[in-house]
């Protein structure tokens, strides 16, 4: 008889090992899925995980990994601070959208001026936009005790309506023949978040993501506020006795994650995406939640998890194109990753014991 036995303390080994085991389990289960679809599973797995890094066209895909991974990491870092303190911001997608709208809007207000101040202004406006959007659930929570999970999530849909509205109205390209969508910022140097070194994929968003990782690491390990964040999540009662101000913490965590999500949106709209359009958001805010957990809410872990997630996206597209795998199979494959992670997380807190059932 197999039983689960609660561990006296969460296992450190399993806590570190579960992401790796989850990736392996995903490869095996995914391989079986691909085999069931009549594709060579080894080739499929190699296409997804190997080709973008070391394949023939890796020179193109490696930079793309940065482009795809940067917003994920930037958002996930912000989310992880809140998640550690037990503050659940599920609405990063909305904050991402609002950051992009505010940032692009602030820039486009000065079109076609050519000033070195425009891009920095857009960065500030982008961060503020995301921050302000996250402040809504934060203030509602601290003043009226509403649930931040629901409020932040619902605000995503409000933000999507805003996005559609500005694409069709306020920010619509006057030279766009009536089609929705803003001017393309890529063709306006003052506002273009271009690659810092051509061909590397390294744009300001990637730099910001790396800085965020370092700051989060220092904050959590070397700073009183970081200690308060961890304490609130691990031992809320003790945190109260230690004098942690919960209101301040909620405002800080939601505000920071909102600002980082807003920044991610701004760097995306001014760089890889180029324009505000109705379909601008592609789910980074939600995927970042997976990235945060896959990375164990640890800054370095999130960096690696963001890279891995980006890899499955890029590799997944290659597998679709080269092997004719349906996109649904790729999505199932990505979903398995979180599924196995959460399932295996059980082993962090429980151990499997083999014993006979006790007769009562």
């Amino acid at each position, binding site marked *: 008889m197999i039983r689960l036995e609660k561990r006296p303390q969460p296992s450190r080994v399993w806590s570190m090992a579960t992401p790796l085991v989850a990736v392996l389990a995903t490869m095996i289960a995914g391989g079986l899925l691909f085999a069931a679809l009549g594709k060579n599973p080894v080739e499929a797995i190699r296409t997804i995980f190997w080709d973008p890094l070391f394949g023939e066209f890796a020179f193109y895909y490696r930079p793309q990994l940065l482009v795809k991974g940067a917003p994920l990491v930037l958002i996930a870092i912000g989310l992880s601070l809140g998640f550690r303190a037990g503050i659940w911001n599920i609405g990063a997608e909305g904050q991402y959208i609002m950051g992009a709208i505010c940032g692009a809007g602030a820039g486009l207000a000065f079109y076609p001026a050519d000033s070195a101040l425009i891009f920095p202004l857009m960065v500030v406006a982008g961060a503020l936009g995301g921050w302000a959007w996250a402040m809504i659930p934060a203030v509602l929570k601290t003043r009226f005790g509403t649930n931040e999970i629901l409020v932040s999530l619902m605000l995503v849909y409000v933000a999507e309506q805003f996005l559609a509205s500005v694409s069709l109205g306020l920010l619509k390209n006057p030279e766009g023949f009536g*089609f929705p969508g803003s001017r393309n910022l890529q063709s306006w140097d003052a506002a273009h978040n271009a690659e810092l070194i051509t061909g590397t994929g390294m744009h300001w968003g990637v730099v910001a993501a790396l800085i965020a990782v370092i700051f989060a690491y220092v904050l959590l390990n070397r700073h009183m506020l970081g200690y308060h964040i961890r304490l609130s999540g691990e031992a809320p009662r003790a945190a109260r006795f230690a004098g942690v101000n919960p209101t301040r913490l909620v405002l800080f965590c939601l505000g920071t994650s909102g600002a980082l999500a807003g920044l991610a949106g701004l760097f995306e709209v001014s760089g890889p995406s180029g324009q505000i359009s109705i379909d601008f958001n592609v789910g980074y805010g939600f995927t970042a939640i997976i990235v945060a957990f896959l990375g164990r809410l640890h800054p370095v872990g999130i960096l690696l998890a963001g890279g891995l997630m980006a890899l499955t996206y890029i590799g997944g597209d290659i597998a679709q194109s080269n092997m004719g795998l349906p996109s649904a199979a790729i999505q199932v494959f990505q979903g398995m990753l979180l599924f196995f992670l959460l399932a295996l997380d059980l082993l962090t807190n429980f151990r499997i014991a083999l014993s006979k059932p006790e007769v009562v």
Partner: protein
Amino acid sequence: MKLNKLLTSAAVAFGLATGAVAADDKTKVGFVYVGPVGDGGWTYEHDQGRKAVVEEFGDKVETVYVENVAEGPDAERVMTQMALEGADLIFTTSFGYMDPTINVAKKFPNVKFEHATGYKRADNVSTYSARFYEGRAVQGHIAGQMTESNIIGYIGSYPIPEVIRGINSAYLHAKEVNPDVQFKIVWAFTWFDPAKEADAAKVLIEQGADVILQHTDSTAPQAAAQAAGNVITFGQASDMAEYGPKPRVSSIIDDWAPYYIARTKAVMDGTWESSDTWDGIGAGMVKIGEISDAVPAEIKASALALKASLADGSYHAFTGPIKKQDGSDWLADGETADDGTLAGMNFYVEGLEGDIPQ
């Protein structure tokens, strides 16, 4: 060790390169789809076009496709990847792929690109689109006579000229046969989202609509109409015949196959040139699906007559006198709309209620 690895990968790269050269006598054609190939509508028909290319050229052609590609940087990456992998011709089949297509085309001057429904072209980028509004005219003609509640529900995707043109065309021709007809329009802000589309259809039916027209890609509105009973629909982009003879009484079909075959042939022959194609019923790019027995014979006959006049060019779907919604004159008596105005159409015609979302 490191050197070893380097040499191995170099050898592998060389092997792949020679492999690529050996396979180069095949023309490689890529397709980028915004929805899943099984959407039963827009993307499905593009994929039928791809299959027709395979059937036509057999071993001489290799096709690849990626479905569910988000408009934006993801689309750019997928196109670049296809170009890197040796595609000679790439069809990008959604309006939102316009800027990505232009960006990628700049980097690969030797690869030909074909962008559906856009307006930006380059030496190696063509655009193509179907005069879907001609089909809408026939649809409006049938719908206006079939409705008993005089309320026609319309599920819009995005308020872009292509969709607005369709609404105007359907309305004008419904109004022509039924002066009391009223259009209720719901904007779904998606091309493909069965849940949203079904909700939109239900809302319209609750408001009294007994005809549902859609400019979204899934069959969900058809299913919703079927469940409601006594509501008729039209197949969108694809025949959707499985919902006939009722609710689906007819359909507008995009037939991309002849165009895709012709363009692939042009690449093979080296005669491909950047062009702007906008074909309708006459050229066969837009087809009217079988009108089912749920439609009375005389309505069917007049609908087919209208279709014939659109096909031979004796009638234009936008023929004056037509006023704009605000009452100002647009087309004088007998005047027909020019393509430029149609391409950028951002106003309703007189009689339509509500505002275009801004």
